[in-house]
């Protein structure tokens, strides 16, 4: 073997000095890094079982599962006929991220989907007041009620949204998704209260609340309380769910948001792992065995760039790193604890899309979906091409995104080989490189005291902002090329535009009226509920919140049952915990 390697190295040297040097002379704008060639010399001492392993086995480099459930073409084709391939969208699936205006508007939207044959539970987008812990009648909510998702002030809103989910689609038969972080425990309490009202045992509930507060400070911005108090809230939900709602995913940790905010690939991986470690440690510190709760951790999605080869390596590196953290650091024994389960795999991010010649975004999303399949994920082109237009996804864009995924699966047959790059000198080298850099960055965070400390001192936020600025500068200098934005923009190019022929399912007039309607209904509800009981529950909440060891979740269930509003609960908690003040970016 060593003798062979010597031979290969010698041949490599001869190649560099001979044919490569000649070629570089001929094309002086190139260098060896412009199109790097990897040989066995780049991958000395490669140990397949240690570095890659078989799909679905430690360290999961080759894949989370032994075989991709979507890989069977016969099954795919039968699903395709019914329009059921879990694509980026599609009108018959309720699982697309959605939520419009008032709870009534959202209920009607889901009702329509179910009438067309949709079967999935809702994947709820909440409006910003709900995400930030303000009621619809709060002055800070003005102009934002029902805008980027549905508004939820009280359990009454949940009761309305879930009206269509009855019978064989009741809460014990569907899975819900909640994109909610800072007030996640209140939303979880509402779901539990709704189930109790309907006589459905809590252990039958399936859902995924995002419940990933740490990345909100780094990337997404819908935080409320200081990080340490937010982690206590996380502990409360983790412990409560482990005990009473074992089929609810505790969290959906977002790598993608951090990348979207500007992080490099390595920062994204390191910061996401630092956050995951903080969450895992919370469970361990609460006295739980890691294998009791880690299998219920999920990841939202890793990914977010157009660099296909490196994104494939990144997915592989992420799986391996997480598995190592779980096994080596937390002593997990259950393989399910060590797996990264993500809703979607590699994909480009909305920040990779362009307003200019927007149909090009379909091409971009397809490249992301190809990266996903090549790295053990599903063909889910995301986002729909009209994402950057700011008008909401059109039905046409959703259809095309879904079709693109189907074409990848059914026509290109890209799923017929699992981890096709396994053992590739290039791919294994890049996987090692990305993982190594992420461990280094993670060590920096550990030295500061972990994720919470590195958020409190502003380190992660500043690093991400700095990277975002570098990215912008690279675009302006031309070091990063974006077609139609900073290159190929001449007068000879055709500025292809798009139009919308199919009406959006959400009537713009309803959207305009949503805020007033919701405020009126909230005012009525506040008049009708038992005000003294509300006051009593809030006073008790205040006292419980001040006791660090108390788990607030059972009390939150009592609060929401009495129609205490989300804003009232958050108001009391703000008083006890304080509010997070962001560090200066300078």
């Amino acid at each position, binding site marked *: 073997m060593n003798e062979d390697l010597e031979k290969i190295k010698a041949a490599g040297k001869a190649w560099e000095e001979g044919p490569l040097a000649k070629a570089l002379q001929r094309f002086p704008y190139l260098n060896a890094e412009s199109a790097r060639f990897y040989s066995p010399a780049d991958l000395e001492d490669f140990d397949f079982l240690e570095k890659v392993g078989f799909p679905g086995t430690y360290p999961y480099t080759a894949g989370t599962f032994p075989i991709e459930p979507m890989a069977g073409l016969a099954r795919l084709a039968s699903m395709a006929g019914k329009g059921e391939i879990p694509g980026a969208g599609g009108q018959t699936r309720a699982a697309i991220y959605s939520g419009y205006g008032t709870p009534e508007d959202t209920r009607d939207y889901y009702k329509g989907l179910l009438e067309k044959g949709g079967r999935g539970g809702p994947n709820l987008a909440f409006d910003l007041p709900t995400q930030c812990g303000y009621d619809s009648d709060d002055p800070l909510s*003005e102009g934002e009620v029902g805008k980027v998702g549905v508004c939820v002030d009280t359990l009454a809103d949940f009761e309305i949204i879930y009206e269509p989910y009855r019978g064989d689609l009741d809460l014990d038969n569907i899975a819900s998704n909640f994109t909610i972080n800072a007030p996640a425990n209140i939303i979880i309490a509402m779901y539990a209260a709704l189930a109790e009202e309907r006589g459905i045992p809590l252990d039958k509930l399936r859902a995924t609340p995002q419940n990933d507060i740490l990345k909100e400070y780094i990337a997404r911005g819908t935080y409320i309380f200081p990080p340490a108090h937010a982690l206590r809230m996380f502990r409360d939900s983790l412990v409560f769910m482990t005990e009473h709602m074992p089929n609810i995913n505790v969290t959906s940790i977002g790598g993608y948001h951090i990348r979207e905010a500007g992080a490099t690939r390595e920062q994204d991986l390191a910061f996401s792992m630092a956050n995951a470690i903080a969450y895992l440690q919370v469970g361990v510190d609460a006295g739980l065995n890691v294998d009791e709760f880690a299998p219920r951790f999920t990841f939202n999605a890793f990914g977010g760039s157009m660099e296909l080869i490196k994104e494939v390596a990144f997915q592989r590196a992420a799986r391996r790193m997480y598995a190592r953290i779980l096994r080596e650091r937390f002593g997990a024994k259950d393989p399910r604890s060590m797996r990264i389960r993500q809703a979607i795999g590699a994909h480009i991010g909305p920040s990779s899309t*362009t*307003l200019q010649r927007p149909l090009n975004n379909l091409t971009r999303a397809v490249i992301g979906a190809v990266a996903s399949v090549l790295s053990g994920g599903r063909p889910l082109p995301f986002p729909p091409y009209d994402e950057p237009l700011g008008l909401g996804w059109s039905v046409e864009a959703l259809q095309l995104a879904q079709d693109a995924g189907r074409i990848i699966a059914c026509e290109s047959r890209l799923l017929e080989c699992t981890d096709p790059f396994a053992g590739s000198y290039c791919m294994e080298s890049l996987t090692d490189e990305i993982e190594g850099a992420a461990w280094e960055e993670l060590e920096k965070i550990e030295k500061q005291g972990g994720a919470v400390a590195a958020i409190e001192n502003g380190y992660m936020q500043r690093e991400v*902002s700095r990277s975002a600025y570098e990215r912008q500068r690279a675009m302006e200098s031309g070091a990063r090329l974006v077609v139609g934005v900073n290159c190929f923009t001449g007068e000879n190019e055709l500025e292809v535009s798009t139009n919308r022929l199919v009406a959006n399912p959400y009537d713009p007039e309803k959207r305009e009226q949503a805020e007033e309607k919701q405020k009126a209904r909230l005012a009525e509800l506040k008049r009708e509920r038992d005000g003294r009981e509300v006051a009593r529950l809030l006073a008790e909440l205040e006292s419980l919140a001040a006791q660090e060891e108390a788990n607030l979740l059972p009390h939150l269930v009592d609060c929401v049952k009495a129609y205490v509003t989300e804003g009232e609960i958050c108001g009391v908690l703000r008083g006890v915990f304080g509010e997070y003040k962001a560090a200066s970016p300078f």
Partner: protein
Amino acid sequence: MADSVVKGKVRVLIAKPGLDGHDQGAKVIAYGLKDAGFEVIYTGLRRTPEDIANAALDEDVDVIGLSILSGAHLSIVRRLMAVMDEKGIGDKMVLVGGIVPDEDIPRLKEMGVAEVFVSGTYITQVAEYIKDKLGIVQA
């Protein structure tokens, strides 16, 4: 406005109105304008129109840059303009950056926004625009 010459460093307030937490665009612009020689003040998240007008007044800025990605731009700008008028700073240059559908750009300009910068904008474009509008040769 083009003939009013600002002496010394141009002061720019970058503000995030509303509840939208996507602040990387705001921070990137803040870094970029600072590097371009402007004095930059960043408000942080979740500022009300009153907060922003007060900050503009207190910091005596020449330009207010709003970063909005949530779709709430029309209502936010309408309220900010009213508050600025009340406080007697209705003539300050207001710029909007973020995700703004084409059809809303003229509506924002009618409300008094000087310019709207959407995705793909170079920071140098924004810097040049401000200098040009304020009649500055060298910031």
